[in-house]
């Protein structure tokens, strides 16, 4: 930098020092012949080829420039030269100079150059960012594809599982039906045999020899065995079908045990070496579960124990463990080998072929115990005996839940519409309750029709959901009953069922009919429509305040709301503003005649469709009646106005308006 360190004092030199230019001359071969001032330096010496200052591939352009400038003055060629030790774009102009060229190179202002650089790098940065984002988007899209693929896979898997479950269910159903059919077919002949052997043993048709009696007794006991087998089979098939309703009741265990003693004693008769003990528990145990099923379990276990015990005893012991009833049936029989213990609850798994029995008793007992919310376990040693332990809840879980639900339903929440839900399946009832509760309704859950009737006597629900097996004609009767009854007819009834008898349901007045499985969202939407829609509005135009009062009284307790008007004009105004569903029009009004009002109503598109019932205190002439019949729904005589009649007429008018509306739509 020595050249510029000593700043000169005179003007020319000062200008030289600040110039951002470069001047030089080259000969015909492009060698430097002169180096001028101008602030910038090429970094070359005299005789050096100027091309060595050109940057890489721009030497061609420099050569082209020099070639041209040797012939004629050439202006403003941008060249890339190494100037002041760094690459720089300079604008060169040249003149012929001897057989060479004189060149002046100027640079672009520094700030312009740096702006350009900044701009380029910004663009590059934006582009880089763009590529980055698009690659991220692709990753996301890939992730999405992966997700939806695995989703599709899961769906396919689900479908497969469902298909398998369906085919399994179909097989099970075939088996169940076969068992049920065959079982029922067997019952009749077995009962004939039992009846006939009874007749023979009673000597109804004459005496029997001792040998004959022995044979008949064999016959009879074989038939009894067969009968038990068939009953077990039928029970199992009912359990499979889920058609084994729980009938819970509250009872003392001791009472049940007493019954069982009487019932089971005869079984010990042909087992002289075996004693049967049914011990009473140390303290009274109150149960709330299905008494018959519990009895059936114990009976099956005891009769099973007796079959496999030749000497010793069979003992039933009961105790309470917390809230669970534990009953043990132990015997001193042949016992069950360890490897067989896992199979004894399988149907038809008869592990001792020499012994009597169907192989159905234990599976049935276990299924029943599970139905009661418990299970049966076995402990056994070969040659020592077996102990079967039943353990079930003292109070059946569903009893508890039903009680809670009934308790909730009993607390009337005035702010929520109450929906009577008639459903024989307990689980569905819980589902209904939860759904309705979540959506601002209060469920009144009942499991049978008598209870439903009692509810209706007590209160007026906003709607009824009738979810019952409609194969059962009593349900149809109930629907009919509700829809025929003056007080209940307006309660919307939604029928949900597994059988497609929609036409019958509709004919009986069901407001909605759905096949299971029920879409709960749809149910709620419909309930909302039915229950929460604006109450139908009745406009009464009458100057007689007593008549208005009377109708108001009549309409009490219905869903209908009454709007009143004293004069014809007021009535017309109200009709236009409030669009009532039905108008009750007095024949004699202070300002207008009923015909005037009717004409006005028909003339206005807002009120044209509203059905009108004319009511009057005086007998009308035939021509008046004829004229009215053309423009109104009907005529009602005031002196005959009973609640029943009023409600009938209004309902008919509403029904007609509704069918009109749907017909128009």
């Amino acid at each position, binding site marked *: 930098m020595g050249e510029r360190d000593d700043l000169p004092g005179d003007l020319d030199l000062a200008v030289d020092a600040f110039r951002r230019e470069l001047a030089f001359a080259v000969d015909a071969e492009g060698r430097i012949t002169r180096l001028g001032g101008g602030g910038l330096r090429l970094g070359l010496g005299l005789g050096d080829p100027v091309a060595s200052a050109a*940057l*890489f*591939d*721009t030497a*061609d*352009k420099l050569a*082209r*420039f020099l070639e041209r400038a040797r012939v004629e003055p050439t202006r*403003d*060629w*941008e060249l890339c030269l190494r100037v002041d030790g*760094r*690459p720089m*774009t300079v604008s060169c102009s040249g003149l012929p100079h001897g057989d060479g060229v004189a060149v002046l190179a100027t640079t*672009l202002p520094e700030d312009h150059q740096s702006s*350009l*650089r900044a*701009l*380029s*790098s910004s*663009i*590059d*940065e*934006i*582009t*880089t960012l*763009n*590529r980055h984002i*698009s*690659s991220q988007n*692709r990753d996301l*899209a*890939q992730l999405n594809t992966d997700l939806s693929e695995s989703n599709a896979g899961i769906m396919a898997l689900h479908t497969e599982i469902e298909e398998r479950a369906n085919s399994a269910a179909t097989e099970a159903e075939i088996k169940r039906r076969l068992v049920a059919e065959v079982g029922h077919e067997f019952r009749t002949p077995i009962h004939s045999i039992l009846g006939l052997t009874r007749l023979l043993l009673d000597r109804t048709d004459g005496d029997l020899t001792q040998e004959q009696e022995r044979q008949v007794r064999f016959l009879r006991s074989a038939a009894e065995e067969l009968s038990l087998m068939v009953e077990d089979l039928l029970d199992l098939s009912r359990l499979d079908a889920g058609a084994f309703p729980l009938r819970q009741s509250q009872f003392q265990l001791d009472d049940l045990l007493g019954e069982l003693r009487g019932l089971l004693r005869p079984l010990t008769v042909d087992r002289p070496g075996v004693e049967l003990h049914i011990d009473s528990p140390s303290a009274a145990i109150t149960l709330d579960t299905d008494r018959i099923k519990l009895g059936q379990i114990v009976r099956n276990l005891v009769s099973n124990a007796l079959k496999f015990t030749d000497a010793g005893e069979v003992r039933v012991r009961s105790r309470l463990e917390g809230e669970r009833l534990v009953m043990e049936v132990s015997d001193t029989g042949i016992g069950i080998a360890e490897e067989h213990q896992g199979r004894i609850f399988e149907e038809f798994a008869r592990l001792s072929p020499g012994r009597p029995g169907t192989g159905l008793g234990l599976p049935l007992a276990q299924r029943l115990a599970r139905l009661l919310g418990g299970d049966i376990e076995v402990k056994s040693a070969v040659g020592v005996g077996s102990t079967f332990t039943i353990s079930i809840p003292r109070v059946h879980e569903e009893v508890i839940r039903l009680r809670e639900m009934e308790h909730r339903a009993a607390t009337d929440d005035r702010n929520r519409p109450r929906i009577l839900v008639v459903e024989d399946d307990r689980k569905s009832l819980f589902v209904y309750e939860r759904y309705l509760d979540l959506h601002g309704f209060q469920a009144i859950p009942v499991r049978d029709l008598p209870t439903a009737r009692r509810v209706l006597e007590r209160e007026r629900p906003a709607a009824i959901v009738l979810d019952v097996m409609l194969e059962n004609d009593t349900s149809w009767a109930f629907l009919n009953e509700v829809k025929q009854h003056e007080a209940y007819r307006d309660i919307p009834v939604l029928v949900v069922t597994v059988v497609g008898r929609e036409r019958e349901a509709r004919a009986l007045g069901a407001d909605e009919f759905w096949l299971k499985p029920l879409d709960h969202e749809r149910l709620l939407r419909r309930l909302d429509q039915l229950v929460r829609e604006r109450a139908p509005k009745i406009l009464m135009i009458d100057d007689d305040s007593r008549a208005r009062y009377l109708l108001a009284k009549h309409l009490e307790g219905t869903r209908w709301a009454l709007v009143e008007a004293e004069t014809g004009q007021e009535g017309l105004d109200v009709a236009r503003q409030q669009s009532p569903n039905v108008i009750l029009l007095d024949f004699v009004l202070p300002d207008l005649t009923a015909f005037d009002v009717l004409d006005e109503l028909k003339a206005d598109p807002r009120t044209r469709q509203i059905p009108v019932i004319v009511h009057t205190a005086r007998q009308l002439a035939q021509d008046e009646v004829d004229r009215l019949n053309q423009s109104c729904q009907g005529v009602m005589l005031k002196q005959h106005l009973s609640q029943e009649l009023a409600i009938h007429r209004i309902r008919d008018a509403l029904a007609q308006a509704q069918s009109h509306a749907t017909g128009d739509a």
Partner: protein
Amino acid sequence: MSMQSMPNGLARWRDRWVEAALSGDRSGAMAALDAALGEGRDPREVLEAVIGAGQAEIGRRWARNEATVAQEHMATAIAHVGLTRIHASARGPHPGVGRIVVACVAGEQHGFPALLLADRLDLEGLDVRYAGADVPLGCLGALVADLDPDVVALSVTLGTNLPALDEAVAVVRRNAPRASIFAGGAGCPAARARALGVSPGADTVPETVALLSQAARLGAARSQPREGA
């Protein structure tokens, strides 16, 4: 890419592109691009024959002193937009193709050639990450360590940036030891690449694309057993 090899139909759109880009008419340039794509051309072809060849043509015009540096800058900005437009049709990498990082060495402000190559590779279905112009050494090191690429392509447009290439190669070797390294661009002679022990790029874009994708696939195939282990 030489003029002779260019399809006739696309030459028309390239000329339109060049005129529009040099006069700063961005929408005119995009119209030319869209028209080329609208003929049902392969986007890769359009990228090379319209934008790539257009930029080369603008360079030639500068050498003939028919275009200024300012015009060149403007045209390059428009070309960035054009590339981005075409890139939108890229569908993302095919499986198992291998990953390529394309970067300009530190100080190298000319990102466009590298971007064009990266986009071209992207359209080829390779897994490409474009790191940008003037990638500082430290960033390059961290990036390749993070992405574990099969190939790293380093771009040098101005020969003055060659010293930065030496450092870049060293840092890639350190941080992504299994990556094949390529060095190319107008400022990087093949001999220089070979001297550094890395592969030079080819003379044309399609050849370079072929070279890089082959190397990337090889790298991906070799790394499979390692990833499985």
